[in-house]
């Protein structure tokens, strides 16, 4: 395609109109606007009109732009560079590495573009095919060690049809931009390959073969793992008003989820919170690998004050990187915070384009985009029979905490688990403030299905009795109901609530979850025949105290078993009381 040239004819915040003087324009291609001081502002074609008018959304500040500024089109869609070196990095929404930019300036000056993958670092490449081998897109050419994994070097996914390897380098150290192989198609056309290639961010990578998400992914968060689980390759949405604890929950998921690779997409969120993650993670040791948590993490830090158009790109970029690591046979988790801000970015652009708005001024096509985004998650059965998965947990920040708004509604229809955050619970400091009654998941739990039902039943009973207490007072209900209520409260206090900031209580591994559940079940099933509300409450208070003390102990800690015995004795005592009465 002949690349177009043109000049600016209108400027309206980040939406810029361009008249082309030469060449064809492609919707979605990247163009650069050259402003007076010579800086090249990256942008993307989002609309073409009258054959020679392009509307660009500019990923940078459009200050000092003027009518007549020259524009260069690239003919290429917005793409992400894939190859070794992504893990451990922090980039903006256009894959500019922020630490590299930080060496230049304190501020994110516009017009700066830095190679996304370090092109000085050498990677130790081991070839896995020989000259003469038949290859095609996604065939593995070899591998390099990257942090915790053997990173497979693929024939770019976009290559189609049979090719023959005419040259491949020997085992040795190469940078991502050095040629490592040459392949030739049946017509004799040659392509030189490096360890990196690009993929357009808005085009989902095709699945080799797709399977259904059924294996629970432990998150370390008890209420999720027990009642509202997510599976490898699954999707979850996490809406809630501000202040309900989304951020803490996200950070906890990022730290403790048993995924191989975690991608955090801070799209339009507070910079301070993103910083907390990427300054903290290098210091934290992943207990499963003994290495820095950052070694399995990639962060897209396109925060709220960065140019709005790049916010939209950031979600897609994170997803494309996720799909790439899934093709590596890994379990990838994307935490997108927040998809509402992403949708708002679309709304801003749509408004400037003067499109007819849908509900709450969001563009009409918002639900289609949201469902297409979540559909990029899933379990992939790879060519070699191994599987990889991509799970997406999207945070939604509905305006006014109102779940009826279009973004939340579209997200609910597109995701497999719903973790609704409740203001009432967070006010009561019952964290995580995930609504015990209104949340749900279609994925299998680490507990048996009947055990889940058993817990949910107790919670529902507890809620009903609580509202009766409000109406009729404690005296208005039977001792029997009151005991049932206390059991539900206890379940909530010692099992569903969790102190994210505590070293031990902050994460619960599957074995301990089982142990705790068994204890809880014992308590629920132990018949209590105490009379009088004061007496009943006091008994459950003692149990709660003993249980909480136990929750804070490490299993290998002195006193752990003693505390467990104390708890069991308390239960026996209850039985004892029953006998005496």
């Amino acid at each position: 395609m002949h690349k177009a040239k043109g000049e600016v004819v209108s400027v309206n915040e980040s939406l810029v109109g361009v008249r082309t003087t030469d060449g064809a324009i492609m919707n979605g291609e990247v163009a650069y606007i050259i402003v007076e001081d010579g800086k090249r502002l990256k942008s993307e074609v989002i609309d073409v009109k009258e054959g020679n008018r392009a509307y660009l959304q500019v990923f940078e500040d459009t200050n000092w732009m003027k009518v007549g500024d020259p524009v260069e089109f690239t003919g290429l869609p917005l793409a992400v560079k894939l190859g070794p070196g992504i893990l451990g990095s922090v980039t903006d929404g256009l894959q500019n590495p922020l630490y590299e930019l930080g060496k230049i300036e304190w501020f994110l000056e516009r017009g700066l573009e830095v190679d996304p993958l370090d092109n000085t670092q050498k990677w130790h490449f081991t070839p896995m095919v020989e000259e003469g081998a038949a290859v095609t897109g996604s065939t593995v050419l070899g591998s390099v060690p990257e942090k915790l994994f053997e990173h497979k070097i693929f024939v770019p996914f976009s290559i189609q049809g049979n090719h023959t390897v005419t040259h491949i380098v020997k085992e040795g150290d190469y940078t991502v931009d050095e040629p490592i192989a040459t392949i030739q198609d049946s017509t004799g056309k040659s392509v030189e390959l490096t360890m990196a290639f690009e993929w357009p961010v808005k085009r989902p990578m095709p699945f080799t073969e797709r399977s259904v998400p059924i294996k629970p992914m432990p998150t370390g968060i008890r209420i999720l793992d027990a009642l509202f689980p997510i599976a490898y390759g699954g999707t979850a949405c996490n809406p809630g008003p501000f202040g309900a604890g989304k951020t803490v929950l996200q950070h906890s998921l990022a730290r403790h989820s048993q995924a191989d690779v975690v991608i955090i997409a801070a799209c339009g969120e507070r910079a301070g919170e993103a910083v907390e993650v990427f300054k903290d993670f290098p210091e934290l040791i992943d207990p499963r690998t003994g290495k820095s948590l950052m070694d399995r993490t990639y962060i897209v830090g396109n925060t709220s004050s960065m140019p709005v158009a790049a916010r939209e790109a950031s979600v897609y970029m994170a997803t494309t990187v996720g799909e790439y690591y899934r093709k590596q046979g890994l379990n990838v988790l994307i935490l997108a915070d927040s998809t509402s801000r992403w949708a708002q970015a679309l709304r801003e652009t749509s408004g400037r384009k003067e499109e007819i708005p849908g509900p709450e001024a969001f563009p009409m096509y918002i639900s289609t985009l949201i469902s297409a985004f979540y559909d990029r998650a899933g379990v992939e059965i790879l060519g070699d029979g191994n599987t990889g998965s991509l799970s997406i947990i999207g945070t939604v920040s509905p305006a006014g905490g109102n779940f009826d708004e279009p973004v939340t509604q579209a997200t609910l229809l597109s995701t497999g688990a719903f973790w609704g955050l409740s203001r009432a619970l967070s006010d009561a400091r019952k964290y995580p403030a995930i609504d015990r009654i209104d949340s749900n998941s279609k994925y299998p739990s680490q507990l048996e299905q009947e055990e889940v039902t058993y817990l949910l039943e107790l919670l529902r009973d507890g809620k009903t009795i609580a509202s009766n207490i409000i109406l009729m007072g404690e005296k208005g209900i039977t001792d029997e109901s009151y005991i049932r209520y206390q059991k539900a409260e206890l379940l909530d206090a010692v099992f569903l609530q969790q102190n994210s900031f505590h070293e031990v209580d902050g994460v619960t591994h599957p074995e301990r979850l089982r142990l705790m559940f068994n204890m809880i079940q014992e308590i629920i099933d132990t018949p209590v025949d105490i009379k009088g509300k004061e007496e009943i409450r006091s008994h459950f208070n003692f149990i709660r105290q003993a249980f909480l003390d136990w929750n804070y102990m490490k299993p290998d800690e002195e006193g752990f078993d003693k505390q467990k015995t104390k708890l069991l004795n308390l239960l026996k005592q209850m039985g004892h009381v029953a006998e005496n009465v």
Partner: protein
Amino acid sequence: MLQKTYENIDSIGRAILSIKAQGVHNKELAEVIYPNGQKAFAQVIALDGDEVTLQLFGGGFGVSTDCKVRFLGKPIQVGFSDDMLGRVYSGNGQPIDKGPELMSDMVRVAGPSINPVKRLIPKDMIRTGVPMIDVFNTLVRSQKIPIFAKAGEPYNRLLANIATQTDADVIIIGGVGLKYDEFHYFRQRIEEAGSKNKTIMFIHTHRDSIVEGLMVPDLALAVAEQFALQGKNVFVLLSDMTQWSDYLRQVANAQDQIPANQGYPGDLYSQLASRYEKAADIDGAGSLTILGVTTMDDVTHPVPDNTGYITEGQFYMKDGYLELFGSLSRLKQQVNDRTRPDHRSIMNAMARLLSEAEERVKAQKFGSVKDDYSLRLLEYRKTFQRELMDPFRYLELEDALDLCWDILAQHFKKEEVGLSSKLIEAYWPEKGKFKILKEMIHE
């Protein structure tokens, strides 16, 4: 640079003017020259062919088609110098304190945002002496946090208290849509506290044009940022950002922008964010803390709603009290583990019990609260409110924590408070040994 003057004004609105001109830059500063020679500032906000749209700082009233427009070839800038300390400026950067005009280094307004990797994780507690803040929602240096309050609440008093009771190097007050007496109040408080020589004010009052009001946060923050880059700890006070958002709505409306929620422009979130995100603890330099005011009827209104998603919490003021529920400091966890070992736990225990008490208040309305425990919860709630929620009661953090233990011990048994046995052993006051609270005499 040749500054061209144009005469063919197309349209004049409340705050917008359009004119045909060439070679004009987006966000360029311009002068509107009246037939009598008087001048007013304007800024380019959109270009379409040779049609240039300008925002009028002085508003559209009195602008006529025989005015001329001269483009100045530079963006909006603000002076920056130590000489500004103690001074008062308007929303277009002109002195309004009868002092001399300042010819100093000019710095750009609304510059790009700081690279997140150049931020430090906030780590210093700001002691305010307000128990509801220090104990329950600790303020942290570099935090951006508003006070959410209805008009009529004493929010400006609280704002001034926090600013003057702490140890900022520089205080910058950005007043948007202030009533004259509020302006006077800030000035007086700053003088009383002896902080005048470290304070700069940018003040827009109701009599000034709305575009000037729109500029206030940008001027205040641009100057604040320069001081922070020089290594100073800077406090920026913005009151009131709801007014500011309303001005933004008026201007967007005058431009025929497609409105989003309740007529606010679709980019309200981004607009608020680019201001609040100036707050930062800068690696190798100083810090910028923003305390704002967001007046509101309820938190679901678009302005507090969008603000809440940007700021690191909020202090929620109601009926003259600082509320526990609704208030939040997102950064408190960064510091409250290094204050005193019981800080976090007691904060949570107090809150949990208070929320339980709130349930009983509801129940009480049905006349169904008669049991001893519920009655004690209600008593606890009263004590809590009386002893802790007054935003103008000054207590050192340690005293406030002791007071919390006293209050718990006054109303509850040890096993009722849900605190670990270790902490109870260390802090539970023995009978009759309250440190702060005077024991109530029950009959």
